[in-house]
């Protein structure tokens, strides 16, 4: 099993405002589900997701078992096309996801 998970990002800037959309590939297992043999599937969910733009945190989220598989996150912040920002995420099993995006 991989130690990293994929994060897809789309970001567009219009009139100085960036609209960013993320799709995080993550099973988001609540730990309550059982497999076909009746065993509990271990809890595995995103814990934290941070977005930094020019050394400033423009988005920070703490995720729990209430969020479903492959979380979709959308947010806005002030920024210009051509600039870049970084997304960093970590889950409860210590696996990480990262994305560096250039704003369109």
């Amino acid at each position, binding site marked *: 099993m991989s130690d990293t998970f*994929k994060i*897809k990002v*789309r970001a567009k800037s219009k009139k100085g405002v960036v609209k960013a*959309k993320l*799709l995080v*590939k993550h099973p988001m297992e609540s730990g309550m589900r059982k497999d076909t043999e009746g065993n509990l599937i271990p809890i595995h969910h995103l814990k934290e997701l941070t977005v930094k733009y020019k050394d400033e945190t423009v988005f920070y989220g703490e995720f729990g078992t209430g969020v*479903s*598989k*492959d979380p*979709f996150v*959308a947010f806005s912040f002030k920024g210009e096309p051509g600039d870049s920002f970084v997304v960093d995420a970590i889950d409860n099993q210590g696996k990480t996801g990262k994305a560096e995006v250039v704003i369109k």
Partner: protein
Amino acid sequence: MKTLNTLLIITLTLLMITACSDNGSNQKIEEPQVATPEQTVDYQLEVDLDVKKFRSYYSDKFKNVAIEDFKDGVYAIDEASREQWLEIEEFPPYELSIDEGLEFFETPFANGKTYSSCFENGGQAVRQNYPYFDTETNQVITLELAINQCREKNGEQPLSYGIGELAAVSAYMANSSRDKIFDVKVPNEEAYAAYIDGKQFFYSKRGQLNFSCADCHLKISGSHLRADILSPAIGHPTGMPVYRSNWGELGTIGHRYRECNKNVRANPLPYQSETYRNLEYFQTIMSNGLAVNGPSSRK
């Protein structure tokens, strides 16, 4: 007494004469030999007429919808859900599956070959050619069946048909075929029989709830079934495979068939059974003229 006798004899004689002359007319007259033209049924024509009726039915029922827009299913007929769907489409959940599908598609099998070796044009832009009737093996071949046939041909284990890797490969192949037009043909009598079998399934009531596909997706399409709006059957296969929010993942048309059958409390048939393949054949033909828009996202 004598007159009576005479009369009787005359009557009998007359009768005998008429009887004889009747026999004469029963004489066989040699009719000139006329060759009767062989009854060739144009199966494609029959099917095209069916398609026409199907299209008119939905065009008449949903007057504001252009025929090509039926590929968007319920989002073509309901403004509110369409808005929500368009927002999701800006960054759709099936994108991850397309990426996965690409990886699977390009990863070689143990023997070094890849999926592209089994398909026309290397498997690019071929979705609109499925399902087709294979005149050699006399059966309907769906894209999913072809994918597993490719695996078996190359010494690999077949994958499960509903969700997972096979669905992702199907998604990748559908995505490479976007906007190509479906034009599935019925080449011969056997193909027509498969088409009719699929058509029969579509119109047959089944399950404890006694519903046919046509009941929900033809007769009362556009109406609400609890919190959902019933989608028109025209355009059903174009967006497959589908990311259903309900499932939280991507699934094939076969996955949906089984789910639908369970919904009416009919025991589902096995994936890729002859009946389901014939049904997909019929459904895709009914959507001829519409464009490939898979994979898609649905509620």
